């Protein structure tokens, strides 16, 4: 019978032996060596049945297939756009995936998306050598016009979205902003006034700061209600 060395929510460092015996399986952030499950990251332990997982405390964005990301067009070539999505290398969006419109031979691609434009796109493929392909085909994928971008740690994105999007819809209700959350930690906000956008942005920063706390929804709700009462400055 295997032995578990850690409890749920313990903070571990790389090399910590999480479990012994073949009954436990390493998931993200952990690996097996002989009959031991060892942590590969600094993070918080999560145990799900036989699976032992380490949730990192911080980290960079690593693209996965079908992630919805917010990217910034960094270069335009003859048949591709290059998009900075916050990963080590720029993602490539081909002409075919970039638009459903008919494009004439020799057309100017920057008329669709120019350098500096922000887009919501889907990661359509991640190759073995970690080259990223993007696609604009799908519901809600488009060029972003106006608004502002807030960047947070990509690890904290699930907390900003909340259970079934509860957190993000609460912020939408209180601030009246349109919000799009990219899996790469970039969040697009567009409200009626800059003040609404600042408030939404502050709420998101609060979530990032207190992401580890339980009862986060209530904390954010309290914050938003307090600010709402104070009214505009």
């Amino acid at each position: 019978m295997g032995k578990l060395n850690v409890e749920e929510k313990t903070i571990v460092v790389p090399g910590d032996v999480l479990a012994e015996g073949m009954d436990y399986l390493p998931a993200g952030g952990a690996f097996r060596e002989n009959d031991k499950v060892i942590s590969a990251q600094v993070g918080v332990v999560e145990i799900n049945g036989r699976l032992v997982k380490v949730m990192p405390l911080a980290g960079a964005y690593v693209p996965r297939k079908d992630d919805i990301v917010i990217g910034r067009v960094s270069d335009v070539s003859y048949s591709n756009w290059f998009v900075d999505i916050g990963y080590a290398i720029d993602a490539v969006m081909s002409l075919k995936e970039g638009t459903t419109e008919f494009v004439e031979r020799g057309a100017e691609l920057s008329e669709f998306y120019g350098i500096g434009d922000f887009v919501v796109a889907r990661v359509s493929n991640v190759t073995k050598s970690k080259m990223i392909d993007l696609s604009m085909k799908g519901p809600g994928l488009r060029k972003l016009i106006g608004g502002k971008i807030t960047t947070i740690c990509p690890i904290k994105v699930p907390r900003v979205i909340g259970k079934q999007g509860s957190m993000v819809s609460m912020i939408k209700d209180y601030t009246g902003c349109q919000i799009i959350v990219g899996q790469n930690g970039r969040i697009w906000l567009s409200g009626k006034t800059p003040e609404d956008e600042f408030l939404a942005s502050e709420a998101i920063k609060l979530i990032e700061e207190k992401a580890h706390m339980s009862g986060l929804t209530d904390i954010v709700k309290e914050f938003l209600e307090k600010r709402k009462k104070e009214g505009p400055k």
Partner: protein
Amino acid sequence: MVPKNYIQTLAKKNTRADGRKFDEFRKPITVEYSVSAKSAEGSARVTIGDTVVVAGVKTELATPYPDSPDEGSIMVNAELLPMSSPEFESGPPSIDSIELSRVVDRGIRESKALDFKKLCLRVGEKMWIIMIDIYPINASGNLFDAAALAAVAALKNAKFPKVGEKDVIDYKNLSDKSLPFTFMPVSCTVLKIGDKFLVDPIRDEELAADARLSVTFTEEGKICAMQKGGQKQLTHDEVLAMIDLAAVKAAELRKCL
């Protein structure tokens, strides 16, 4: 990271990307002295909001320049460390780093705050060269003001090293003699975005600005150096308005020293 024209749109709506007023500096503004007491004769670390700049002062003995045999000299060098911003690359000095060091140099030199005559030990033979090195630790906008403040703070903090026989400098033992530094020249940079003037820009505002004016003031508020930057022109009235704003803000910065 901001969308195109975001800063300009906000300026039209009378606000800024971080919700500050146009004439408001980021907080906190701090100045720490002797941050590198073991290796430099004087040093200081300045923070303005997220921007952090470290300046160090080294002294060296050299032969005076032939055109000014009875004067010492200063040398200002700024290196934009790749660590401090994703925009900076290692390699030969960039235009930005040269401009930064020259604006700081001119602010100190032309204010006459440092008495060059007193930096001369023997006319035509030996003088002190004061070397001021500026390193941004986190370049998050407004390097000009932060660097100028750090350089001045480091000069104020500096002590001459002891000099033995045959002009051998003992860097390990500093004397208690300060540099002949009589007052603090303080610089303030004003940006023009659309028809608005603002101080203490974040990096995104610097990139969006039409024009920039750095003005250095003496203690009485006299102008001793100016530098204009940016793509667009400034009218005479605009320059005067920017100087007025810079004068008020420089006086506030001076209190932090």
